[in-house]
């Protein structure tokens, strides 16, 4: 179990967010919904990136698979949400398991490139399989249950799902399994010596990451009432990678902060200038040259600095 004060703090945050529709405008609710979805997406990647130490360049593939699958099951086949959402998540997880089986045989840059290759394959399928996915027009007109039709109810739905998923990820990352992943990251050879099948552990992490990315994708598609091939493109994979790194990879909360900050910064910047890439590039330069451990690391450093100043 997490420390009591963290548990209480999380409950307060969720409660405050749940109260947002009472006071917030439609715009605030829309932004909050999207931030929640990206938070889940970033957290799912961090299972692989931060905990296991594998850089995936193709994480958008599972996001897109979850999104497309949920959209198609709901709309083309008329499944109820209760079945369509879990089925989409399971499908994303299954594809991640199959792709992961091949990818975890490689390490480092080769691993990254193979994940990219598979992701571009997913993108190609979404692009070319026009009858099913809508091709480059995207898959639009997703049918949602009437209950979730209103943006407020969809926000509550997203909040509930994301909160539950984050709790599940927290449990997974802090279980014996999660600690084993950290051991694999820190010293793969030594972890192998004490009897851990490191490749299998990385495979499991890959599958978990893909599954939760699929959930985030499903939420994303339903929220936008459409999925587009850009959601599977490698730039999307790069963006979520940056979110995680901005927050800080070696902590559980880092990606949450990174996703929220990056997304908010993006919509804020777009109000004033079309040069978002420049802003993002400068942010990256700051991360790389000054803040290698992300915002979480910065906060830790500031805290240490303050303490040192208090006790001279």
């Amino acid at each position, binding site marked *: 179990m997490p420390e009591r004060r963290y548990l209480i703090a999380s409950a307060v945050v969720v409660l405050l967010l749940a109260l947002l529709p009472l006071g917030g405008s439609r715009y605030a609710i829309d932004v909050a919904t999207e931030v929640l979805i990206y938070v889940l997406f970033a957290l799912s990647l961090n299972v692989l990136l931060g905990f296991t130490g594998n*850089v995936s360049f193709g994480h958008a593939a599972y996001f897109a698979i979850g999104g497309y699958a949920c959209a198609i099951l709901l709309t083309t086949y008329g499944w109820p949400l209760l079945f369509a959402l879990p089925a989409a998540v399971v499908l994303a997880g299954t594809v991640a398991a199959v792709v992961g089986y*091949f990818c975890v*045989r*490689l390490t*480092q*840059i*080769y691993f990254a*490139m*193979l994940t*990219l*290759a*598979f992701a*571009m*394959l997913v*993108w*190609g*399928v979404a*692009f*070319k399989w026009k009858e099913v996915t809508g091709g480059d027009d995207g898959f639009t007109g997703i049918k949602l249950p009437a209950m979730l039709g209103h943006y407020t109810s969809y926000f509550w739905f997203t909040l509930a799902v994301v909160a539950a998923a984050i709790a599940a990820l927290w449990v997974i990352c802090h279980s014996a399994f999660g600690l084993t992943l950290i051991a694999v990251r820190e010293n793969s050879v030594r972890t192998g010596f004490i009897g851990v099948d490191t490749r299998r552990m990385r495979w499991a992490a890959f599958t978990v990451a893909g599954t939760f990315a699929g959930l985030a994708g499903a939420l994303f598609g339903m929220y936008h009432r459409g999925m587009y091939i850009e959601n599977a493109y*490698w*730039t999307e994979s*790069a963006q979520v990678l*940056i979110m995680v*790194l901005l927050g800080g990879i070696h902590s559980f909360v880092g990606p949450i902060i990174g996703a929220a900050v990056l997304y908010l910064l993006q919509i804020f910047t777009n109000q004033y200038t079309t*040069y978002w*890439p*420049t802003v*993002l*590039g*400068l942010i*990256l*330069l700051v*991360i*790389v*040259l000054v803040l*290698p451990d992300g915002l979480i690391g910065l906060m830790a450093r500031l805290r240490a600095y303050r303490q040192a100043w208090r006790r001279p």
Partner: protein
Amino acid sequence: MTLTMFTLNAFYGLALAMNMFIIASGLNLIFGVLRVINFAHGMFYMFGAYIVFTVTKSWGAPFFVGVLAAAASLAVIALVIERLMLKHLYGKEHLMQLLFTFALVLLMSDAAKMIWGTDQYSVGYPQGLGGAVNLGFVVLPQYQLFLCVVGPLIALAMWLVVDRTRWGRIVRAATQDREMLAALGVNVPMVYAAVFTIGSALAGVGGALAAPRVALVPGMDATIINECFIIVIIGGLGNLWGSFLGALAFGFVVQFGTVWAPNWQDVLPYLLMLVVLIIRPWGLLGRPEST
């Protein structure tokens, strides 16, 4: 497919392969020595192409002056980037270097938009290379023929320099043991700077030579960088002849893919990389890394 069509397609595949090799060999050299995966390589390629456009169209200079200008400009840009920023990142994690080059991509793409706008441009074939050569059963365009000559020449030159000269020995030593090389009195930071400069200049040359073949649009860098990665990975990271082989495989797959499976031509190279990586995880000529 008739013999004529087959020869023509094989020839276009070869020309594409050689153009891609020139670009990918720079990326490969930089990775081989610096162990940095340079995402900005595609951006350097795009700048090379745009610079040729400016030099030939706006200033009216001959094409090959444009090629030289592209190589020189990219060398300068690369040198500045290396000396100011990249050199601080060699000891850090791969991920940090990668993010750094990704930041360069973002910054340079906006810079390109500011300098050249978002219009589509084209560059004509250079004078004397715009015609065609008649072989009896097939007519081959001169410019593509020229690429088929330049590609192997660059490969050969790189092989000679890296494998047969003292400077090449130092570069190879730098890939093996940086500290030992420094202890022997070699100025290792200069070696790194030179390699990054030369590798980036190759991207500029590759982009300049590609300019008559392709449309100059924003975003042309993204496709190229992914294709270069595919080539370098197929061949085996850091291996010169591996990249050559990878480029050939890429060129033929793309060219014949356009003919036989036109709907899937964007995905075929990725499929190729997938198959190679599953069968030979370290590329065709690569060796498993011990790190």
